[in-house]
């Protein structure tokens, strides 16, 4: 199976790695700037989990590719157009509510999606998902509780949470829309199709919004592009920061 699925599997593993690295980096930008100490620690803990997951995926991708590239080459030496993370994860941190909206919409997809990977015939995916699923469970708990606290909080926090949710809304669906490499893996039985998780994903989002006394955004727009390397203007700036040392001093180790 790996013989035929390999190029798509490599692309998919890189896509998962990029999602985790980019979101992990964004959360890391909060380090020292969190609204309170506990939440500063929470965001950097989640960042660490995601960067750890990204490393596992990059290591696996490097192994699948078999061309001598390492996890570091894949993270530090690919350009913006070669990154295939979903647009949602590269959105800037904004205020705390924007970070929460982005995290919640990601986690609501991430957890059920990882659960489907536990049943993949691909051992490498199963192994990584087996670790990541435990971590993603804490992440969703944290982000959904903050949607509740801000939404069902003060007038100001509710307003900000609503604005943040409205602004992130059009990016949420890309995660459920298979890219060509995902479709090939779905056809090959390596990945589950989006219908497997759609109900749980919709339910989590709808329940949380209702309980938080927020309004489901009615914006029908759907923005995609990240999975095929067409990004918002934000990713390039972030990669410039993330990759600077390796670009300026190739092979630098510390």
């Amino acid at each position, binding site marked *: 199976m790996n013989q035929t699925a390999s190029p798509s599997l490599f692309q998919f593993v890189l896509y998962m790695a990029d999602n985790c690295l980019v979101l*992990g980096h964004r959360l890391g930008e909060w380090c020292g700037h969190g609204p309170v100490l*506990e*939440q500063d*620690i*929470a965001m950097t*803990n*989640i*960042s*660490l*989990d*995601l*960067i*750890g*997951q990204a*490393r*596992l995926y990059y290591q696996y991708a490097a192994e699948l590719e078999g061309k001598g590239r390492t996890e570091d080459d894949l993270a530090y030496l690919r350009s913006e157009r070669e990154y295939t993370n979903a647009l949602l994860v590269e959105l800037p941190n904004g205020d705390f509510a924007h970070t929460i909206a982005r995290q919640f919409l990601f986690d609501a997809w991430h957890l059920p999606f990882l659960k489907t990977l536990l049943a993949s015939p691909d*051992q490498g995916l*199963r*192994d*990584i998902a*087996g*670790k*990541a699923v*435990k*971590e993603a469970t*804490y992440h969703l*708990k*944290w982000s959904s509780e903050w949607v509740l606290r801000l939404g069902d909080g003060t007038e100001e926090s509710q307003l900000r949470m609503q604005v943040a949710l409205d602004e992130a809304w059009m990016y949420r669906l890309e995660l459920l829309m298979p890219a060509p490499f995902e479709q090939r893996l779905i056809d090959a039985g390596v990945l589950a199709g989006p219908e497997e998780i759609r109900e749980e994903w919709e339910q989590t989002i709808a329940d949380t919004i209702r309980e938080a006394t927020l309004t489901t955004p009615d914006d029908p727009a759907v923005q995609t592009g990240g999975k095929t390397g067409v990004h918002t203007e934000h990713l390039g700036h972030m990669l410039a920061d993330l990759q600077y040392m390796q670009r300026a001093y190739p092979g630098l180790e510390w």
Partner: protein
Amino acid sequence: MNTSAPDIASVWTLLETVVDPEIPVLTVADLGIIRDVHLIENGVEVVITPTYSGCPAMNMIEVQIMAALKGAGYQDVRIKTVLSPAWTTDWITEEGMAKLEKFGIAPPRKNQEFPNCPQCGSPHTKLLSQFGSTACKSLWQCQECKEPFDHFKCH
């Protein structure tokens, strides 16, 4: 120097001297992250599994295992990392649990919604944050003695 033929039991004894850099009361054996030990020609292979995917202590732990075994005379020391089966706090030994509690960290006990305060033993505790000073811990406070404390999360 280890001049006699190496044996697995002595490797385990050495591994019991390697401690977690973040929680120095626990050895890597207490943590349950050593999955296997094999003797190989001129040395030993240690199979370990990470706790959390991004745990920054893992690199340090590998360096320390390497140093302990090389220091005991094993020439060829290899460390292999496996992900599956995924690490769980169920693998922390009973001795490890007791050491954690004594150190002031509430150990991960299943079927216990509220960890007992490691200072005064009270079951009246409240969660301050699901995320604590390291990936594996959450932050709690005792309602009786008011002390904040870390809880090693069930994972």
